[in-house]
């Protein structure tokens, strides 16, 4: 009995260390980048990447909760991002006259985006999470495609008479001074750019707090139990579909908030941006970072976004090299021998540290 409790406490220590590490990485990175921004030593390239990187990190953390912790494959994370993004662009456009300060408007828009994405996640989850198997992957894949088509055909305009909308064509005429919030395939143009890096970092920290608190709570343990052995979990009275729903909805909400931040960082946003490829890209960040490993997800997202930009000097070959690097990472991180070597190295170090201390 003693042995078991010591193993448990050791694994808890390890989890705690992982948690502290991911917060530390985010905060230290933020401080360094802010100092570089203030002194003007950050290049235009990197400063233009700051906000999108935070968006993708949050979306990937959300996806990792769903894929890594809950064990349900989701192929439509970009769909939830687009729901959040277009919702936020509309809300921000509607509020432009009343809430003039950027930050409150950004926060309200992000909350709306997250809420709408969570709502869609809830709707999808009701039938699908009652099923066993890969159905969530199939349905979220379809959801991503459907939501893209919906935004392709959505026309929303605002003028002095209020909101106008159509799902057929832009046949309504706006009063002079009116603004099209969504314009079908052209998406949203002329959006006020109110997103900033600090809000992105705060969003990452909130996402980490939510995910870690969920993971190490009673519900989190239930989610993992449902993943590891559905029958055993059911037999001890865990409501499977409800626990999976919790993870899925939180994941969708984080994607929505990330999408909202993304949408308000560019003056133009097209529905085509959030296609199947984007979903897969986020899944790649998660898989390379390690399922269930939030710190790894953050690092892999940052590296994989920076990589193609750093390889720009290779011109035509950069996407090829990018692919080669991806394959290399997969080979190296999945090599058992390397893993055990790494473990023995770090293990020895830890032991040495203990004897020293």
């Amino acid at each position, binding site marked *: 009995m003693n042995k078991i409790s010591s193993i448990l406490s050791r694994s808890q220590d390890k989890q705690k260390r992982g948690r502290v590490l991911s917060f530390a990485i985010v905060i230290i990175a933020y401080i360094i980048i802010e100092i570089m921004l203030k002194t003007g030593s950050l290049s235009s390239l990197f400063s233009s990447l700051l906000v999108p990187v935070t968006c993708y990190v949050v979306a990937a953390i959300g996806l990792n909760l769903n894929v890594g912790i809950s064990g349900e494959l989701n192929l439509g994370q970009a769909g939830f991002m687009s729901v959040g993004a277009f919702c936020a662009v509309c809300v921000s456009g509607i509020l432009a006259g009343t809430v003039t300060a950027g930050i409150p408007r950004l926060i309200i828009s992000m909350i709306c985006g997250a809420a709408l994405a969570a709502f869609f996640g809830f709707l999808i989850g009701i039938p699908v999470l009652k099923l066993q198997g890969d159905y969530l992957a199939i349905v979220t894949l379809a959801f991503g495609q459907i939501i893209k088509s919906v935004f392709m055909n959505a026309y929303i305009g605002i003028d002095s008479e209020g909101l106008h909308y159509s799902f057929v064509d832009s046949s309504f005429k706006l009063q002079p001074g009116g603004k099209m919030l969504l314009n079908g395939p052209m998406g949203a143009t002329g959006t006020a750019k109110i997103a900033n890096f600090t809000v992105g970092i705060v969003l990452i920290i909130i996402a980490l707090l939510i995910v870690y608190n969920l993971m190490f709570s009673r519900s989190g343990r239930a989610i993992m139990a449902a993943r590891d052995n559905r029958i055993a979990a059911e037999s001890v009275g865990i409501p499977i579909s409800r626990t999976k729903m919790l993870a899925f909805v939180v994941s969708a909400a984080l994607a929505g908030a990330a999408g909202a931040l993304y949408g308000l960082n560019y003056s133009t946003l097209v529905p085509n941006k959030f296609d199947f490829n984007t979903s897969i890209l986020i899944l790649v960040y998660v898989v390379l970072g390690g399922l269930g490993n939030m710190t790894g997800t953050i690092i892999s997202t940052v590296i994989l976004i920076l990589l193609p*930009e750093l390889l720009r000097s290779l011109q035509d*070959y950069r996407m090829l090299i990018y692919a080669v690097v991806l394959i290399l990472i997969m080979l190296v991180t999945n090599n058992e021998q390397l893993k055990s070597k790494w473990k023995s190295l770090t293990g020895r170090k830890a032991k040495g540290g203990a004897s020293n201390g």
Partner: protein
Amino acid sequence: MKRLFKTSVAVAMTVCMAAALTACGGSGSQQASSGSAAIKIGGSGPLTGPAAVYGNAVKNAAEIAVEEINAKGGLQFELNMQDDAHDPEKAVTAYGVLKDDGMQVSLATVTSAPGAAVSPSYAEDKIFAITPSGSSPSVIYADADNMSGAYGNVFQMCFTDPNQGSASADYIAAHTDLGSKVAIIYKNDDNYSKGIHDTFVAEAAAKGVEVVTEQTFDDSNAQDFTVQLEKAKEAGADIVFLPIYYDPAAIILNQANKMGYAPTFFGVDGMDGILTLEGFDTSLAEGVYLLTPFSADATDELTVNFVNAYKEKCGGEVPNQFAADAYDCIYAIAQACEAAGVTADMSADAICEKLVEQFTTMTFSGLTGSEMKWNANGEVTKSPKAVVIKDGVYVGVED
């Protein structure tokens, strides 16, 4: 152990491959470096991905123009064309790269949606930009819905989409011999196609042109148009307006021919290039009308020289309208720089001020039109030329 060996061999080989390719990439670098005293022209476009045809056309033509101008002596230019994969997000990062590189003048972007994303940055940082082919009004106006809030330092070399749509409607209204009932087949997930369609419909209604049916398609079903053509035929359309690029247009012409449906097909500048499409029977394009600023078959000296230079550079490929616009952009920038006395050591800000003044007052004659002028909003005034395809070549239509 065997597995470890295998993996390490695989890893080593990939590393070698990567290293070899890196070397190729390095030596294949195509920047037209010509000393330190060159004015740096930046620009981004889709050099990879499905829209790469347009980005590469612009890049190649701009390189030709830069080489020609540099060979003449006088002002020297250096081109840095970055890839944006037709994605607004990547266009913004490409803009960062260009700015870090010290860009002084810009070609903005090749396509519209990325253009709309970077134009505010050009306005904010006061860098002069002229887009060869970003035709949407959102590229030059902050508030495109009301055509107001022009950035002022972002100019266009091509016509804006609304301009093309209304010009097409006007042409059809003025030439009743072409037909009276118009069917439209357009691509509803494409900014360009949708933009032209919208203004065409509005202008057609104003001019009393009867639009009998509007059919759409998108990326996922751009292979089969029998349904749309059947609907157009049923509605009794004798003109089919195609505000689309030439690849789907070629399929439409082919399928209409098989159906035995022979209305007058009417295209816009995206149709340019259909005669050079591989595997396309050009006899199908007989009698197709299109509005285009550029035709590669023109016999004036400027066009002939450009087409030959382009063919030589790109292995026999015939330049399209995008290439011609890019070529004109570089020459227009060079003309304005010379007239304003711009030198390579001036700041982007100072160059911007001088070039805006030049562009709003000068006239420019190039491949895509003569006596072109720009207004203060950055729109170009040149009249689209209507041509009809006869015996496999463009023939100008007299008004």
